[in-house]
C-alpha cells in the first residue's frame, strides 16, 4: 500500500498529542503516586464524567471495533451478538457493582482478589482469582496491538525500518508501545483516563461521519443490506431438537456480558470512581457507547457493499490481516485522506487506553495478591507502588511477545480461552458479594472444574470456536463454553459447600459495608 502523507501526518500529530497528555496526566488531580491506590486507581477520585470516559474507553476496546465488524463482514448476522451482549452488561453492572465499589472503598481493596481474600479469608482462593485475571488479560492486551497494527499498515507505514544497517521489524508498533509503557509507568491510571476523553471524541466523530457519509455513497441502508448474502442476513432457523445458531447467539451474548465485568480492567475502572453513585449513574449513561458499537458493527456490512474484498489495492491488507482489514479498507475507500488520519487515530488511540488500563489492572493483581501476599508481606507502600509500575512493564512485554513472537491466531485463540477462564471467577467475586455460605475449598474446586471443562470444550474445535454443542436429553444445544462451564462451576461450588463444614476463617467485611 502506498503511504498517504496527509493521513500519516494527522495520525502522528494526534498520537503525539495524547502522548503529551499521558505524561502530563501525572499532575492531574495530583496525588502521591508512591501509593498503589494513587498510581493504580487514580486515587479513587474520578467523578461520574471521567468514569464515563474511562470505562467507555476501557470496555469498548480497539479490538472490539475492528473484530466485531470483521465478524459481520465474514459471518453476517452472528456477529451482531455484540449488541444483545452490551444490552445485558448494564443491568448486571447496575445490580452488582455498586456493592463491590462500596466494600472495596470501605476496606481499601484495589482488586477483586483483594475482596475475595477479605471475604473468605483464603489467600489461596485469592491467588486463583488473581492468576486467572492476569492470564486472561495478557492475550487481550496483545489483541489491542493487533488493532493498532492493522491501522498502521492501512496507512501504508512500512513495518520494517533499517537503522544503521540493522533492520527492525515492527518498528512503528514497538515505538507506539514504548511510549505507552513509559507514560503508564509514569502516570498510572490517570494517563488512560485523560487520553480516553480524546479517544472518545475522535471515535464519536468517526462513527457519526461513517453512518451519514457511507450510506449516502452506497445507496442508503437498503443498498447496504442488499449487499449482504440473504442466507446470513438473519440466523438460520432452528431445526427440530436443535436450536442451532440461535442458542449459540443467546449464550454468547449472556456469557460475554458476564465475563466482561469480571475482567481486571473492568474492576479497575469501576473501583477508580469516586462514589457509589458515580457507578450507578454510569450504568445508566454508558449504553451511549453501545449505540456506537452497534453502528460500528454495521460497518462490516458497509464494507461488503463497498466491495473492498475484491479491490486490488486492498489485497495485501486482507492477505495480512484477514477480515480484520475490512473496516480500515472501507475507510480508505470512502473517506478523504485527512479524515482517514482521524479515523485511524481513533482506532489506534482506542487501543492505547484499554492496553494501559489492562496492564495497570494486571500490575495491581500481581502486586497485591501475589507479591505482597507471598513474597514480601510487610512491604512499605512505596515499594508496593514501584513493584506495580515494574509489573506493568513486564505485562506489556509479555503482550508484545504474543504479537511479535507468535502467529496472531494464537492471541485470538488465547483471548477466546481468556473469556472462558475469567468467567470462572464469578462465583467467588459476584456470589461472594451476596453470601459467604460458599466454602473457599468448594469455590476453588468449582473454579478448577470450570476451567478444565471450558478448556476441554474449546479444545474439541481445536480452539477455533468457543461454541460447544451440549446433548441435553436428546436435544442438541450449541452453547458458549464459558456459560456451560460456569454452570458446572456453580453446581460444584454449591454442592461441595453443602457437604463441607462451615468456613472458619474470619470475614473481614460486615453486611453494612456493601450498602
Amino acid at each position, binding site marked *: 500500500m502506498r503511504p498517504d502523507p496527509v493521513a500519516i501526518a494527522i495520525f502522528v500529530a494526534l498520537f503525539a498529542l495524547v502522548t503529551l497528555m499521558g505524561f502530563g496526566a501525572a499532575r492531574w488531580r495530583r496525588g502521591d503516586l508512591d501509593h498503589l491506590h494513587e498510581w493504580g486507581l487514580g486515587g479513587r477520585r474520578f467523578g461520574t464524567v471521567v468514569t464515563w470516559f474511562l470505562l467507555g474507553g476501557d470496555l469498548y476496546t480497539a479490538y472490539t471495533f475492528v473484530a466485531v465488524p470483521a465478524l459481520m463482514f465474514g459471518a453476517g448476522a452472528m456477529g451482531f451478538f455484540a449488541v444483545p451482549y452490551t*444490552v445485558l452488561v448494564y*443491568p448486571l453492572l447496575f445490580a452488582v457493582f455498586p456493592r463491590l465499589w462500596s466494600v472495596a472503598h470501605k476496606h481499601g481493596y484495589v482488586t477483586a482478589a483483594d475482596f475475595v481474600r477479605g471475604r473468605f479469608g483464603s489467600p489461596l482462593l485469592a491467588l486463583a482469582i488473581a492468576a486467572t485475571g492476569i492470564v486472561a488479560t495478557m492475550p487481550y492486551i496483545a489483541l489491542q496491538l493487533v488493532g493498532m497494527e492493522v491501522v498502521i499498515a492501512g496507512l501504508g507505514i512500512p513495518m520494517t525500518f533499517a537503522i544503521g544497517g540493522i533492520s527492525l521489524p515492527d518498528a512503528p508498533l514497538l515505538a507506539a508501545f514504548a511510549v505507552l509503557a513509559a507514560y503508564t509507568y509514569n502516570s498510572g491510571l490517570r494517563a488512560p483516563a485523560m487520553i480516553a476523553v480524546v479517544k472518545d471524541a475522535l471515535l464519536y466523530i468517526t462513527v457519526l461521519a461513517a453512518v451519514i457519509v457511507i450510506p449516502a455513497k452506497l445507496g442508503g441502508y*437498503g443498498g*447496504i443490506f*442488499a449487499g449482504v448474502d440473504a442466507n446470513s*442476513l438473519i440466523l438460520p*432457523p432452528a431445526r427440530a431438537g436443535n436450536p442451532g445458531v*440461535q442458542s449459540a447467539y443467546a449464550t454468547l451474548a*449472556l456469557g460475554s456480558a458476564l465475563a466482561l465485568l469480571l475482567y481486571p480492567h473492568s474492576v479497575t475502572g469501576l473501583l477508580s470512581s469516586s462514589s457509589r453513585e458515580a457507578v450507578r449513574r454510569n450504568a445508566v*449513561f454508558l449504553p451511549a457507547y453501545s449505540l456506537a458499537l452497534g453502528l460500528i458493527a454495521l460497518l462490516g456490512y458497509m464494507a461488503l457493499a463497498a466491495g473492498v474484498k475484491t479491490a486490488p489495492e486492498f489485497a495485501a491488507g486482507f492477505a495480512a490481516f484477514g477480515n480484520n482489514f475490512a473496516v480500515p479498507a472501507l475507510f480508505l475507500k470512502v473517506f478523504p485522506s485527512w479524515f482517514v488520519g482521524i479515523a485511524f487515530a481513533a482506532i489506534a488511540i482506542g487501543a492505547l487506553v484499554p492496553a494501559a488500563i489492562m496492564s495497570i489492572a494486571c500490575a495491581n493483581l500481581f502486586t497485591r495478591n501475589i507479591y505482597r501476599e507471598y513474597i514480601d508481606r510487610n512491604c512499605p507502600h512505596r515499594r508496593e507502588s514501584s513493584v506495580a509500575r515494574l509489573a506493568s512493564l513486564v505485562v506489556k512485554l509479555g503482550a508484545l511477545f504474543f504479537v511479535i513472537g507468535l502467529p496472531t491466531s494464537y492471541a485470538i485463540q488465547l483471548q477466546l480461552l481468556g473469556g472462558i477462564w475469567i468467567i470462572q471467577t464469578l462465583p467467588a467475586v459476584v456470589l461472594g458479594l451476596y453470601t459467604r455460605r460458599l466454602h473457599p475449598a468448594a469455590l476453588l474446586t468449582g473454579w478448577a472444574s470450570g476451567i478444565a471443562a471450558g478448556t476441554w470444550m474449546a479444545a474439541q474445535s481445536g480452539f477455533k470456536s468457543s461454541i460447544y454443542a451440549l446433548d441435553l436429553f436428546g436435544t442438541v444445544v450449541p452453547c458458549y463454553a464459558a456459560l456451560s462451564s460456569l454452570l458446572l462451576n456453580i453446581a460444584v461450588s454449591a454442592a461441595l459447600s453443602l457437604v463441607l463444614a462451615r468456613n472458619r476463617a474470619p470475614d473481614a467485611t460486615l453486611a453494612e459495608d456493601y450498602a
Partner: protein
Amino acid sequence: MEKPPPKWRARAGALLLLVPFAAMLWVPSYNRIAPEVFGVPFFYWYQLLWIPLGAALLLPAFLAGKRGGSG
C-alpha cells in the same frame, strides 16, 4: 429527614432489570427480516432499539435507590 421509598418500588425496579434478559435471550422473537425500517431488517433495528430501552428500564431502579440514602 427524607423518607425512604417504599420497598415495593425497589422490588419493582429490580424486576425491570430482568426484562432485557428475557427480550434479548429469546432469539426466535426477533430473528426475522420483516418489518424493515428504512431498508434495515427487523433483526437489526429491533436489537439496536433495545440499547436505549435497556437504559430506560434501569431508571426506576436508579431513582428508587437514589432516595433510599444508600447512594
